[in-house]
C-alpha cells in the first residue's frame, strides 16, 4: 500500500470521527490542529484506524505517537508485516 493511499483512507476516518468533512490530514497534523482531538477522542480515533486497516496499535504506540506521519509509519510497518 502506498503512503498516499494510507492518507486518503485516514482522511475518511478522521472526517467520520470528528464529524468534519473539511479535514485533510498531513504528515505534520497533530491533536493541536483538530479542535475535538483530545485524549478521549484519541482512543476512538485509534480504534477506528485499527478497524479501517485491520491492524492493532500497541499501547506504547497509542500513547507516544506524535503526529499523523508517525501513525502512517506504524500502519505501513504493520501492513508490510515488519
Amino acid at each position: 500500500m502506498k503512503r498516499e493511499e494510507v492518507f486518503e483512507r485516514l482522511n475518511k476516518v478522521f472526517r467520520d470521527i470528528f464529524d468534519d468533512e473539511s479535514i485533510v490530514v498531513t504528515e505534520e497534523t497533530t491533536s493541536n490542529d483538530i479542535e475535538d482531538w483530545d485524549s478521549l477522542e484519541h482512543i476512538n480515533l485509534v480504534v477506528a484506524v485499527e478497524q479501517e486497516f485491520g491492524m492493532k496499535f500497541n499501547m506504547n504506540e497509542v500513547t507516544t505517537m506524535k503526529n499523523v506521519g508517525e501513525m502512517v509509519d506504524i500502519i505501513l510497518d504493520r501492513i508490510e508485516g515488519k
Partner: protein
Amino acid sequence: MNLTSLFFLCYVVITLCIYFIMPKKFQWVVLLISSIIFLFYDNLHISTVIQALVILVPSYILGRKIENHTNTKQGKKILILGIIIILAQLIYLKYTNLFLATANHINNLLNIDYQFTFVQRNSLIGISYYSLIMIGYLVDVYRGTCKAEKNIFKCALFMSYFPILTSGPFIRYDSVGKQLYEGHKLHYDTLCRGLIRILWGLFKILVISQRLGMFVDAIYGNLEMFTFIFIIAAAMAFVMQLYTNFSGSIDVIMGISEIIGIKLPENFNLPFFSRTITELWRNWHITLGAWLKDYIFYPLLKSDAMQNLAKKCKAKFGKKAAKKIPMYLSMLIMWILIGAWHGGEYKFIIGSGILQFIFMFLEDILRTNIKKD
C-alpha cells in the same frame, strides 16, 4: 519524617553533602541508602520490610522476564501476575476496612446481628505511590517503552527515591530512572533554583496553608456557631489550604531533586485558573492523571469489552452514543479508582471520585448541547 521539619531539612543537607563529595559512580548508592533510611525511619519492622520486598522482588524478577516477551501473550501473563501481587498487598493494607464496612452495611440490611471489627494495618510510608509506580514500570517494560533494570539495587532506588515518598509526583522509569543512576555535579544555578523552589514550597505550607488551616479548623469545629457565609468561606479556604499544602510539598520535592540534578515531572499547572472542571483536573496532580490515563483509562477504553459495548451501542442508539457510552463508563471506573486512591473510605470514593465524574459528565453533556445550539 515531615517535609517541613528541621530534621528533614538537615537530613536532606547531609544526604546532598555526601552525594556531591562521592565519586559520580557511587552517587546513586548514597541516594539508595538515604532512601532506605527514610523509608524505614519511623517504621522499621519485619512486616514493613516484607511489604517493601513484596513490591521490589516481583518487580525486578518479573520485569526481567517480561523484557523477553514484550507485547506478547506470554508477557501479558507475567505482567498480570506482577500486577496481582502488588495490588493484592496494597488492597490488603489499605482497603480491608472498606470491605469490612461494606460487609457491615450488608449485614445491617439483611438484619444479621454481626459486625466485623475494623483492623489497623501497619503500612510503610508511600506504599500507594511506589505500588503504582512499580506497576507502571512493569507495564512499560511489557509495552517496550523501557528496558528492565538489571541491577536490583538500582530497581530499589527507582522504587524508593526518598523525596517523592510522601507526596509524589509519579515517576516513570524511562524518564527518571536513568537520571537517578547517572552522576551529577553541583551547579550554582541549579542550587539557586532548587533552594528558591524549596523556600516557595515552605512558604506555601508554613505561611499560607497552616494559617488557612487555623481558620478552617475554627469554623469546621464549631459549625453551629457560624452563619452560611462563614461556612462557605471556610470551604473555599480549605480548598486553598489543600492546594498550598500539596503543591508546596511538591515544590520542596522538586527543589531537592533540582539541586541533585534530577528533573521530575511537574504535578500542578495553575489548576484554579482552569475554565472547566475537566481542565481543573487536568492541571491538578497531573502525574496521577497521566498515570491513570496511560495505564487504566486508555487500555480500558481500547479493550475488547468496551469495543463490543461500542458496537452494541452503535446498533441500538447510533454513532454518537457508541462513542460516548464506553467513554463515560471508563471515566466512571477511573474516577472510582481516583476516589479510592485518596482513601479507603466511601466518603473518598464518593466525594473525590463519583461526584467529580458527575460534574465532568454534566459538563460534557452541556458542552455538546450548547455547541449544537
